[in-house]
Each structure stands twice: as structure tokens, then as C-alpha cells.
């Protein structure tokens, strides 16, 4: 039992809060990130340390990592944080940074999302550490998130390598007790030119490549001796090798009936320590989420084990899954005859995206390529007006490829690409250049809701504010589009909640054989409005009601997909959810809906 006194010294923290705290205690000076679930709160928690740490939202993850690299070269401890798919964007600098190494310690936090709670895939980013050959740590709870973060900076400087701190959703978002420490301030390491180290030309690269191989040997020796690769010996029958939150599940399921090798450092792998452990147990299990990453390292080293032949390779694990896989036992549960109806996420009542999607839903012969954000929900019924979604920034470029081959193939199917403001600034700009430069003709619709909404309202270069809360120069999106080459007459700025205008502008743009951009500008209904928002938009509280005498129950309003509209015996609007966006009022053919 923890005593009450002991607990008084501890704080209940999420893994993300603990990562920020660990970085603070380690003397971090610079942090950059692009928001993405489940990593977003790391930088949001960094703001409390703004006296000591400069924190920023970068336009994308590649920029975030490059900024952190620069801070390291200049002699500071630095970090970049991102969700798993963000590391795909930042992979280019990562692989070469692994060659050059660091000056100030540099840590890259990758927050993976097994089970895809809020992601488009569930890639296992441990593979990146092995591919780029960077040291990797994997915490399994909040205390380790803080402790490993501090260790990561030490190891980064000791081995002259960037360190990948690999988190997962459950580690990021679960709270556990954490003992806090003090910040140790670190002076900047004085800068000296070092062209051989930091200019990755082929000639220098060959030397750096050799150094990387030597570094791997040293890091592996450390991996074999470090206490974070820890053996807990409880007998010879069953041995378990595990890492991250999977260790917590395994530890709970097997209790004291198994011996454990809990890995905190998973690249390079401690092969000697694993061999020694494997030699002491009769039956060896590897319990890990997603890919057979640890298992493959064991098998390559000739160590046989039971792993993905029983443990699922997809989705997140839990104690039920581990128990069932190993022992075949299932906990008895209460069964009911009735079933709960789902609560799928939907565009909010009053969401400005609804207006544009409603307008698009009326167009025939149109392919709408989509992107990552709240507005991906435009693919859901009843609007069903978004037809593809791959990755950040991909709507415009994939739309360009589609429209080019359709046109050359003589098809009359037209293409519109839809993208949010933050996603456009993340990586849509270069895609728009592709359309203009290569003489495409697709329509780009930028849903500018004045914030990065999906991840919980972070500022971006288009909002006029920084992460640290300071006013700043904002990107002028229309001027940016003009600079790329969109002609004045092909650039439209509209309020998407005006359905007729939205529909007409889309028609006009689709009729042109030139690249066009429609900026659908209205702030997110959940946003905390800035003074500028209040000046620019009419945001006074409103509400709509249905006049039951006039309502014919034609259900056209229901087909806008607004969650404030209830359709039972009668159709009515929930006054508490309605924001008075008037989309339903505009679609009602019987004037049965009015503003109050």
C-alpha cells in the first residue's frame, strides 16, 4: 500500500503531462510539434513552463523536427512531438539526423494509436527506430514517461544520437502517480562550426555512416546493461518479454506466476540479456501490441518464442485479449437482449462545414477528394459528400491526379478537393502548386474554420496566435493562393452557411477549365472566438424552431445530418444544441423553420 504521506508527494498525471514534465526537469529549452491525437497534450502541457522553454506549433511534423534539430545544433536540449503518421512526414530529416547526431540532446516523441481511436491507420513506429538506427525508449506508464524522458536526453548526448520516445494512446492518455523532481538548468553548449558532422554530403555521409555502425555497437552494449531492461525472476516455468503498456497487461494476467524481462529500451535490442533470460525459462512468450517487432529481433537472433501465433497482430491489446490468447479463458459477462444504439461522431450542430457538404451533396457527377480533419465526417450519411481520404494534404494532389486522367480519358466526371485551413498550411500548399504548375483544372475548397479543430482547437499559422498565446502575423490564405498562381477571377471567398451562394460558386468553379480555389470561411462553432473573429463574423447567439403547423414531415431538414434535429413522431429542434446556423431553415421548402 502506498502510504498517504508518500502519495502526498506524487501527482496523478497522464503520460503526455509526464513527458512534458520530464523534458522540463531535463532542462529542455525548445519544443516543436504539430498537433495530432494522442500526442497533442504534450505541447499543450509545455506552456506552463514557458519561462524556461520555448514551445511552438509548427506547420507540420517535418518542420517541427527540423526546428528541433536546429536547436540541438545550436547547443540546446530540444524535442519534437507528433502522432505516428506525423513521423512519416518527418521521416526525411530523421534518417539523416541519425547519421549526424546531436549537439544538445534531442528527443522525438512518436505517439502511436493502436486500435485507431482517432487515426487513419495503426502503423507501428518502432520500425522507424530500427530502420533509421536511432535509440528508442518505450515507457509503459506515466512515471516511466517522465523518467525515460530525462534518460532520453542523457542518452542522446552520451551516444550522439537522436532518441525516439515511443508512446501509445493508453500510455499518453492514462493517468498514474508520478513523483516530481526539480528542473536542472543546462547552459547552451557553445556553438562551433562542424561541417564534417553537420553537412550531409555523400563524402561526409560515408564517414557518418561508419560512425553510426560503431554507435550501434555501443548502444547495444548499453541496452544489455541498463536497468530499464529489467528482469523480474519468479521461477523457470514461464518467461515473458514485453514492453510499453502491453507489459502492464501481461503483468496483470500472469501475476507472480511468470518471470518477466520488461524492456524499456527497444532499440538496439538487448540481445545478450534476452538470450540469458530465454535460457532460464521453459516457455517464452513475447507479448507486444501491433507488429512482431520484438519477436522478429528474437527470431533473427535464433531465440524461439511464442508471439504473434497467439497474440493478435492488429488492434490494441488488453488483459482480456492476453488472457484469452494464452490461457483460452474468458471472463463471464452479463448478456442483455437489448442492444445499445451507436453514437457515431458527427459534424456538430452549427458546424460551418455542413453548409458546404450540403451544397456538394446536390452536385451530380462529382468526385470529392478529402483530407484529415473534422471535415472527414462529411463522408458519413446522410451527406456522404466526401469520397476519399488518405493523408494530411493529400486531397488536392490526389484530386489533381484524378482530374488529369479523367480529362485525358474523355470522362465528364469532375473533381473537387476539400481541405481544412490547418491541413492546407500543413502540406496542401505544395499540392496546390502541383495543380497550377501542371495546368490542372480541379476545384480546391479550403474550409477555413479559423482553428485546428479536430485535435481540440490549437492555433496554426493562419489564426494569428502562437502556442504561447501571443498575437502573431497570420498567413493570408487568399494572397498565398494568388502567389501560387490562382487568378483573381478563380478565387472565391464565401460563407459556407449560405447554401445558395455555396452551390452557385461550386457550379461556377466546376465550369472552368482552370484551377480554382473556394475559401469557405466561418469559425468553428466550438471555438473560443478571438476579438478578430467577433469583428469579422456575426456570431451573436441564435436559434431556430420548427413551426409544427407548417411542418409536413418531408424530412429535408433531417437530411442535413444536424444532431440538433430530432425526428420522431414530430420533427423538432433541440434548443440547447441549436446554434441558429439556419442550414435547416434554408433547406425547408415550406417555410416551417424560423430564427428566434
Amino acid at each position, binding site marked *: *500500500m*502506498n*502510504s*498517504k504521506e*508518500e*502519495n*502526498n508527494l*506524487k501527482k*496523478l498525471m497522464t503520460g503526455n503531462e509526464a513527458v512534458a514534465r520530464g523534458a522540463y526537469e531535463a532542462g529542455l529549452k525548445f519544443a516543436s510539434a504539430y498537433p495530432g*491525437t*494522442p500526442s497533442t497534450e504534450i505541447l499543450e502541457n509545455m506552456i506552463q513552463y514557458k519561462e524556461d522553454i520555448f514551445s511552438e506549433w509548427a506547420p507540420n511534423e517535418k518542420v517541427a523536427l527540423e526546428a528541433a534539430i536546429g536547436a540541438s545544433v545550436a547547443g540546446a536540449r530540444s524535442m519534437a512531438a507528433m502522432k505516428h503518421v506525423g513521423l512519416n512526414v518527418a521521416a526525411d530529416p530523421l534518417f539523416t539526423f541519425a547519421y549526424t547526431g546531436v549537439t544538445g540532446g534531442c528527443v522525438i516523441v512518436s505517439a502511436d494509436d493502436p486500435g485507431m*481511436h*482517432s487515426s487513419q491507420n495503426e502503423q507501428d513506429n518502432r520500425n522507424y527506430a530500427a530502420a533509421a538506427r536511432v535509440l528508442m525508449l518505450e515507457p509503459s*506508464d506515466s512515471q516511466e514517461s517522465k523518467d525515460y524522458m530525462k534518460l532520453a536526453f542523457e542518452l542522446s548526448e552520451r551516444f550522439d544520437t537522436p532518441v525516439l520516445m515511443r508512446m501509445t*494512446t*493508453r500510455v499518453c*492518455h*492514462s*493517468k*498514474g*502517480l508520478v513523483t516530481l523532481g526539480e528542473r536542472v538548468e543546462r547552459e547552451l553548449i557553445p556553438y562551433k562550426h562542424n561541417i564534417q558532422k553537420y553537412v550531409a554530403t555523400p563524402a561526409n555521409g560515408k564517414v557518418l555512416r561508419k560512425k553510426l555502425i560503431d554507435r550501434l555497437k555501443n548502444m547495444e552494449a548499453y541496452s544489455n546493461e541498463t536497468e530499464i531492461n529489467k528482469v523480474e525472476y519468479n521461477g523457470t516455468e514461464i518467461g515473458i518479454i514485453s514492453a510499453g*503498456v502491453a507489459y*502492464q*497487461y501481461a*503483468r*496483470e494476467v500472469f501475476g507472480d506466476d511468470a518471470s518477466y524481462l520488461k524492456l524499456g529500451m527497444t532499440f538496439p535490442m538487448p540481445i545478450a540479456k534476452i538470450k540469458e533470460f530465454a535460457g532460464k525459462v521453459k516457455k517464452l512468450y513475447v507479448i507486444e501490441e501491433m507488429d512482431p517487432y520484438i519477436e522478429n529481433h528474437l527470431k533473427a537472433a535464433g531465440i524461439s518464442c511464442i508471439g504473434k501465433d497467439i497474440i493478435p497482430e492488429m488492434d490494441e491489446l*488488453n*488483459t*482480456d485479449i492476453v*488472457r484469452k490468447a494464452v490461457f483460452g479463458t474468458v*471472463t*463471464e*459477462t*452479463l*448478456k*442483455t*437482449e*437489448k*442492444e*445499445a*444504439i*451507436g*453514437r*457515431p*461522431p*458527427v*459534424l*456538430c450542430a452549427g458546424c460551418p462545414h455542413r453548409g458546404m457538404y450540403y451544397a456538394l451533396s446536390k452536385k451530380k457527377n462529382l468526385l470529392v477528394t478529402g483530407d484529415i480533419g*473534422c471535415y472527414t*465526417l462529411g463522408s458519413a450519411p*446522410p451527406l456522404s459528400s466526401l469520397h476519399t481520404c488518405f493523408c494530411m494534404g493529400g486531397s488536392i494532389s490526389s484530386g489533381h491526379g484524378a482530374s488529369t486522367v479523367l480529362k485525358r480519358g474523355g470522362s465528364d466526371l469532375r473533381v473537387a478537393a476539400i481541405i481544412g485551413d490547418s491541413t492546407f498550411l500543413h502540406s496542401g500548399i505544395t499540392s496546390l502548386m502541383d495543380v497550377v504548375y501542371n495546368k490542372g483544372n480541379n476545384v480546391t475548397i479550403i474550409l477555413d474554420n479559423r482553428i485546428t479543430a479536430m485535435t*481540440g482547437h490549437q492555433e496554426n499559422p493562419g489564426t494569428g496566435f502562437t502556442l504561447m498565446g501571443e498575437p502573431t502575423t497570420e498567413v493570408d490564405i487568399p494572397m498565398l493562393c494568388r502567389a501560387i498562381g490562382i487568378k483573381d477571377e478563380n478565387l472565391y471567398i464565401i460563407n459556407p452557411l449560405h447554401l445558395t451562394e455555396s452551390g452557385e460558386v461550386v457550379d461556377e468553379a466546376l465550369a472552368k477549365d482552370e484551377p480554382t480555389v473556394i475559401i469557405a470561411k466561418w469559425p468553428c462553432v466550438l471555438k473560443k472566438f478571438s476579438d478578430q473573429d467577433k469583428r469579422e463574423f456575426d456570431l451573436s447567439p441564435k436559434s431556430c424552431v420548427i413551426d409544427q403547423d407548417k411542418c409536413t414531415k418531408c*424530412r429535408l431538414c*433531417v437530411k442535413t*445530418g444536424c*444532431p440538433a*434535429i*430530432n*425526428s*420522431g413522431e414530430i420533427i423538432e429542434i433541440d434548443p440547447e444544441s441549436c446554434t441558429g446556423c439556419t442550414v435547416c431553415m434554408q433547406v425547408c421548402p415550406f417555410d416551417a423553420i424560423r430564427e428566434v
Partner: protein
Amino acid sequence: MSEVKNILLVGVGGQGTILASKILSEGLVKAGFDVKMSEIHGMSQRGGNVSTQIRFGEKVYSPIVGKGEADVIVAFEKMEALRWVEYLKTGGKMVINDFEISSVPIQQGKAKYPEGIIEELSSKAEVFVFKAGDIAVELGNKRTMNIVLLGALTKAMNLPGIDWEAVIRDNVKKGFEEINIKAFHAGGDQVN
């Protein structure tokens, strides 16, 4: 106490489950337990269901509760009670707020809100049902509904020796301490 206890708070985005979970977990920490708490943020802001899982005991490993393992489930909404009942341990208790929140398939007329949830659940488990929202309104502040439910939960958990009033004072908005403490006790009175 060596055994780990499992609590689930389930509801719909915006019902105040997060504050109730925070007060609960802080009380348990003050009492000297090891505590883990897990939330899935997901897309709850956009009408999804929310769940908070709290586990406490001498030493807690997994941050999430398995099926058939919850000692107490508090459902802030009726249909959520139905959704999560398979997580209830045999002999576990349920506190259910007798309150309906529709969902999009229901609003769209594609599905019907299930009838007779309370009756079915009451026939299968020890269930405490009341209208926490009405109790909160009677006390004078609708927004204390979550604390009414927290009061019922702590009573159902039967954990003596925790100064819940002090934890509530530390966590609610200034000026709203007394009404929240009243709400807490009014919730407790629903569980006997």
C-alpha cells in the same frame, strides 16, 4: 486491501464525467491507494460516448478495466448503462441516471432508442436508478448532476475514511462548493 477495484464512469460528451472522475481519483490518491485512470478522448466532443476507467488498490498494472471486471459502473445516461453492462463483475453494482440522450441514428429515424433498459438491467444486477438531473435542479443548479452521481457512486463503493467534502472543495469552482457538497450527499441518499 490487496485486491484491485475497478470503477467505470460512462456517459455522453458534455455530461461532466471528467470532473467526477477527477474528484474520485484524487480522493483515492489521498487515501493512499495506487490509482490509474484512463480516458478515451476520441471524438466525444462531436456527440460520441465517453468513458473513464478508474482502478485502485495496493498496486495497479493495467490502466483499463476488462470485461466482467467492474465493481461499480455509473452510467450518466441510460443507453450507456446498456452499452457497458458486459463490463460489470458478477455481483457488481450499477448506478444509473434515468436520463435519455438520443444519438444520430435515432435522430435520423434509422433506429429506435431501446425501451425497458432499466427493467432488464434491474433483473440482472444490483441497480440504483434515479433522476440525477432532477435532484440537481431541486438543489438549485442543474450542473451539479455529475456530483449527485459521484455521491451515489462513492456510497455504492462503500469506502469509509475518505474526506470527499475536502476533495470536492478543492476541485469545483469557487462559490459553488456548498451546493456541490449538498449534491454529493443527495446522491449518496439514493443508494441504500
